[in-house]
């Protein structure tokens, strides 16, 4: 039985407090009026501006534009961090379901670790849903399409392309869909955890079979809802743009981050003297998954990029134009973090058994996938006014603290060995 050490608890709370303070500072520092932005910009370029009326009007538009971007910034920072940690829990849930359905013989010693990580699903879902509700209530403007003027033909902001999508892109159905995804995922997480614990108590095959069927059903539900979730929650930021493999792309980033976190938590618990049956073959298997899914992510990233780059159709290519022009270092830098690093470090079979190498590569992969989410969201909300400063880092710290707190307190709620699993003996002696 694992107990949450006070040190770790304090560590998580410190992160949450610092993060929360920084987030508040981010919201306070966001410009409150266009005048402030004007001053800021004037401060920036006070090199001989002779204002005639035409450029003055142009400047006003520019000020308004930058003003909206800067107002979006603290919200987007929170949204990116919230989604990043939420997707880790969700990916871990999908991986967990796959382990049940494939009746994997190596992973049952890790079931409780995965269940601990999916413990973040409940608070993560609540926060995600709150953020979506706040956006739909027009508290913020990170979702451009939520501006009602775009749908009004009489308005000068009328946007026929977005208006034609109103059957999908409207606040009511957006929130209903979000509620369905979240309820479905959380229901699976609740039931499978319950069945898994019952199986420990009662043994036999009854709960195992129930969990098997439930997991198979969940995976079907998941792949449909995950795809739709990525259109709603991520692609929705760019309502003019569309890509067919986007759902898969988001999924690949999700699953590789989740497996990385599973490996890191497992290595940490092992180093603390828990998980006595975890050996370096289990770590080797997780590292292989990290390696393979990193390459899978790169494959999807490249397929999406290259097809659009090659055909260069204006309506699609703007997505990458803004990213290459304004986010060049992040957009290509994440390829190094998410592909080159894991490719070279995790190719060697011996390296995959070295704990510190797995942790080190894991950190690189997680940073890379945070940047991935950042580059998916930010160009549409803050555009060229982006910066990784106090709002972004604070939001990341806050959700990191929350994640650590929730995950490790969930781990402390049940014994760390799922002893009822019919594959547990095989898993204890797993050796590769």
């Amino acid at each position, binding site marked *: 039985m694992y107990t949450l050490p006070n040190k770790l608890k304090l560590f998580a709370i410190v992160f949450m407090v610092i993060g929360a303070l920084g987030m508040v500072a981010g919201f306070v520092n966001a410009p409150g009026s266009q005048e402030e932005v004007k001053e800021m910009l004037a401060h920036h370029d006070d090199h001989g501006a002779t204002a005639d009326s035409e450029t003055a009007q142009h400047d006003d538009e520019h000020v308004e534009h930058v003003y909206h971007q800067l107002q979006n910034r603290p919200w987007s920072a929170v949204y990116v961090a919230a989604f990043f940690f939420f997707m880790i829990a969700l990916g871990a849930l999908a991986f967990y379901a796959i382990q049940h359905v494939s009746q994997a013989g190596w992973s049952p010693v890790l079931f409780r670790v995965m269940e601990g990580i999916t413990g973040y699903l409940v608070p993560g879902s609540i926060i995600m849903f709150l953020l979506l509700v706040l956006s739909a209530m027009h508290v913020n403007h990170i979702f451009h399409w939520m501006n009602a003027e775009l749908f009004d033909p009489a308005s000068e902001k009328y946007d026929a392309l977005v208006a034609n999508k109103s059957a999908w892109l409207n606040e009511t159905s957006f929130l209903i869909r979000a509620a369905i995804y979240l309820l479905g995922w959380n229901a699976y997480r609740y039931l499978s955890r319950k069945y898994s614990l019952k199986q420990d108590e009662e043994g036999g095959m009854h709960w195992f079979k129930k969990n098997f069927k439930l997991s198979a059903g969940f995976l079907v539900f998941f792949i449909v809802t995950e795809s739709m979730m990525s259109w709603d929650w991520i692609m929705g930021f760019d309502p003019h743009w569309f890509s067919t493999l986007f759902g898969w792309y988001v999924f690949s980033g999700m699953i590789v981050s989740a497996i990385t976190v599973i490996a890191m938590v497992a290595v940490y618990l092992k180093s603390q003297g828990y998980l006595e049956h975890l050996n370096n073959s289990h770590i080797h298997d997780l590292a292989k998954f990290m390696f393979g899914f990193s390459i899978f992510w790169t494959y999807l990233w*490249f397929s999406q*990029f*290259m097809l659009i780059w090659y055909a260069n159709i204006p309506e699609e290519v703007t997505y990458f134009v803004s990213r290459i022009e304004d986010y060049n270092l992040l957009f290509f830098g994440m390829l190094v973090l998410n592909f080159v690093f894991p490719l070279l470090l995790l190719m060697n079979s011996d390296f995959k058994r070295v704990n510190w190498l797995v942790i080190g590569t894991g950190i690189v992969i997680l940073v890379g996938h945070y940047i991935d989410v950042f580059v998916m969201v930010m160009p549409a909300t803050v555009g060229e006014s982006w910066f990784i400063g106090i709002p972004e880092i604070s939001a990341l710290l806050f959700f990191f603290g929350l994640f650590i707190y929730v995950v490790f307190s969930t781990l402390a709620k049940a014994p760390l060995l799922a002893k009822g699993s019919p594959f547990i003996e095989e898993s204890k002696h797993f050796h590769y």
Partner: protein
Amino acid sequence: MASKVIHAIYTDDDVLMQAVKDARKAHYHIGEIYTPFPVHGLDKAMGLAPTRLAITSFIYGIIGLAVSIVMMNYIMIEDWPQDIGGKPSFSYIQNMPAFVPVMFELTVFFAAHLMVITFYMRSKLWPFKKAENPDVRTTDDHFLMEIDVENHSVEELSKFLQNTGAIEVNLIDKQE
């Protein structure tokens, strides 16, 4: 040079594994082991060095990648940089996404084929090679361990092998 070896034949891979461990413990030199299928863990029990085939494959892959880059840079960028459908052939990096499929495939092609050829060369396999099979049954359901007699007593060695569960123990004069 003629040398004497002993062929001990087994019918079970578990018995064979145990015999290998015993023989190594008794410091007999195992020359060769013939099995009809891969016996998991046999190489470890025999104390064979791990293969370096994967390392050669990695190197071949890098060579393949280099070949593809040099080839396409020469053809598409340096030799005749035509405008083909508006693709930017001013520098390699500008047109790189279009070359990636070729770069990938050549990397895999070199890594795979050269590694296979390396394997054939290292294990001395080719179409008209004379099969080195000491006993035809070893390709079907028997396992054969060949131990060098050296200066051990043949009688003692035979007895030892009988005790490890061998169904047959034969003394062979090897002509080389």
